[in-house]
Each structure stands twice: as structure tokens, then as C-alpha cells.
């Protein structure tokens, strides 16, 4: 499968949120307004791309080389946690304006299962270096897309008269289900 198909697959047909259920917490929780959703998406895409690049190297040159693959989860989560911390410090120092906008979302990314999920899928599918980087970036783009679409729909829904038991989580999950159905329409795009 070429790089292009890896990208299209992870953005549309196998979207991390709507197909693999990764990153559902921010998807259901944060996305009430478009701008916030977009900021969260960009911050996550950034961390995901870096995570893909770094964990690929760690997995290939340290874990596999020294036969210590059982340390996979511990080392991946350490990488992600320190990466998030690093990105936060970097932004604070050099791009304070961007930090103002993204700041509050950054710590949340550590426990976003989409980031760890990305690293695990990458290892499972045995992608090479370039494929991993594209996969990481595409996963972030797909996550942003789902978040922004959801934010738009929720903005409309808030105006409607929703039956009592469905308010909040219920209706959001229902919308997510319909979105997942809609995204199934893309499934012909990528040859299997």
C-alpha cells in the first residue's frame, strides 16, 4: 500500500475516532465550539507526528536491537509524556501566542489514547520510517477532521429541544454513530 493510501485510509476510511474509537474522550468532551476543536486538533496532530517519528526510532534501534520489546508500553508512554511536556515548554518560550491558544489542551494529550494507539498500530503493522511519519500525521488530520465536524454539529444541536434522557452524552453518541455511518461511505476509496 502506497503512502497516499495510508494517508487517505487513516483520515477517511479508518478514521481514528470513528473507526478505531481512539481519542473519544476529547471528541465527546471538548468539542463544543469550532475554534477550540481546531486548536485541540492541531496540537494533537503536532504531538502525533513527533510521536510517530520518535517511537519508530526507539522501537527499531533500542527495543528490537536489544530484544527488550516487553518494555514497549512503558517506554512509549514515557516518550509521549515527556514529548508533551517538551512541546509545552518550547511553545511557552518561543511561540507564546500559540501557547496561549493551545496551552490548556496540551496536558490532556498525554492521556489521549489516540497517541499511544498510534504508536501501537505503527508497530503492529510494521511500517517503515516514512510510512510511520505519514501515518502519524494522517492520524492527526483525521482526528482534527472528526473533532471539527462534531463541534459544528453540536453547535446546531444545542439549539434544539432534545428529550431529557438524551441530553449531553446520549445525543453526542448518537451523532457520532451517524457520523460513523456516513464515513463508512468512504470505504471504497482505498483498495484492500
Amino acid at each position, binding site marked *: 500500500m502506497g503512502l497516499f493510501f495510508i494517508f487517505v485510509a487513516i483520515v477517511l476510511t479508518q478514521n481514528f475516532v470513528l473507526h478505531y474509537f481512539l481519542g473519544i474522550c476529547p471528541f465527546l468532551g471538548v468539542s463544543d465550539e469550532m475554534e477550540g476543536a481546531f486548536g485541540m486538533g492541531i496540537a494533537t496532530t503536532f504531538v502525533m507526528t513527533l510521536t510517530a517519528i520518535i517511537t519508530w526510532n526507539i522501537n527499531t534501534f533500542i527495543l528490537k536491537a536489544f530484544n527488550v520489546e516487553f518494555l514497549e508500553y512503558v517506554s512509549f*508512554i514515557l516518550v509521549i509524556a515527556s514529548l508533551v511536556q517538551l512541546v509545552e515548554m518550547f511553545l511557552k518560550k518561543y511561540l507564546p501566542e500559540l501557547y496561549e491558544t493551545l496551552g490548556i489542551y496540551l496536558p490532556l494529550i498525554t492521556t489521549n*489514547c489516540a497517541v499511544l494507539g498510534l504508536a501501537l498500530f505503527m508497530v503492529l503493522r510494521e511500517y517503515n520510517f516514512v510510512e510511520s511519519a505519514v501515518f502519524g500525521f494522517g492520524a492527526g488530520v483525521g482526528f482534527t477532521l472528526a473533532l471539527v465536524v462534531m463541534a459544528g454539529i453540536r453547535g446546531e444541536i444545542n439549539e434544539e429541544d432534545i428529550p431529557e434522557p438524551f441530553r449531553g452524552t446520549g445525543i453526542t453518541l448518537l451523532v*457520532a*454513530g451517524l457520523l460513523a455511518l456516513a464515513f463508512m461511505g468512504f470505504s471504497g476509496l482505498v483498495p484492500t
Partner: protein
Amino acid sequence: MKVNEMIKDFVKGIWKENPVFVQVLGMCPTLAVTTSLINGLSMGLATTFVLVASGLAISALRKLIPDQVRIASFMIIISSFVTVVKLLFEAHIPEISSQLGPYLPLIVTNCIILGRQEAFASKEPVGRSLLDSLGMGVGFIFALVVLGSVRELFYQGTIGGFELLGSWYKSMVIMVQPAGAFISLSLLVALFHKLSGSE
């Protein structure tokens, strides 16, 4: 500590603060692995083990862990226990382990676990923390088992492999696909709110 306080620590996770239906935490495994009763149950048990074990460890170490690096320390403790579970599953129940796939290691980022450590285990003594994590674990298993049974029933008319609806039932593939997961959980959450709203 009084007995009814102990019971309260335990019971709140099952109904009043149910991690899935009320707190909406741990959604990824909830939606991803509940294609059948048995998958939901094994995921629930694995998560509960990690929750209880890391709760005990963190509660016992709570005075030794410096505040600034507590999240990182929690993550390392949690991911070590997840590695234990993953290796156990691979050795003893390989079929279920391969069905759960990457969602088993993803227990590391299950927000229920980190949430409970942050909100409870890092502040309270070992005994209370044990009851709290057991309660949350049972609440999580309850949610996964219900969702898994509903999806399996409407997918192929069975629960836990036992045929309930007979051979006339035409299987609904949508129930084991992502859309079915979202929609059934949505209906269950609404039902839960309806049932607990009258209290």
C-alpha cells in the same frame, strides 16, 4: 472507618458514579471491544486488575512520590501492570488476547485508571483506595457486559454464545461495526439516565 462508609466507597462506582454511564470515562475500550459478552467481560476484568493493583501501589507510595512528577510516575506504574496483564493474557488465553489486539495495551491510557489515581488513590489510605477501585472496576465490568450482551444479541441472536433468538433471526452486521457501537451505547446511556433520574 465505619462499615457504611466502606460500603459507600465501594457501591458508588457501580451505580451513582458509574464510570461509563455517568462519568463517560474509558470510552475507547467500551466501544471498541464490546462486540460480544466474552470480549467485554475479559476487557473489564483486565482493566479492574490494573485499576486495583495500581491503586494499591500508588496509595502505598503516595507520600514518596513528589508532586511535580506524579502523573509521569502514575503512568509508569500503570503501564507496568498493563504489561503484566498483556503477558498473562498472551500466555493463558491467546485467542482473546489477539481479539482484543492493541486495545489491551491501551488500558494504559484508560482515563478511568488515571482519573481514580489522581482523584482518590494519591490522597487516601490503602484500604479506602482498594474499595474505591474495586467499586469502579465492578461498575466498568457491569457497563461492558451490558453493552457486549446487547450488541451480541442483536448481531447474531446469542448472548455469551448461547442462542436466544432462534434460527429465524437475521444477523445485523451493523451492530459489530463502529456505528452500531456508538448508537447502542447512546441508547443505553439514555436508558440509564431515565432509570436513575427518578431517584
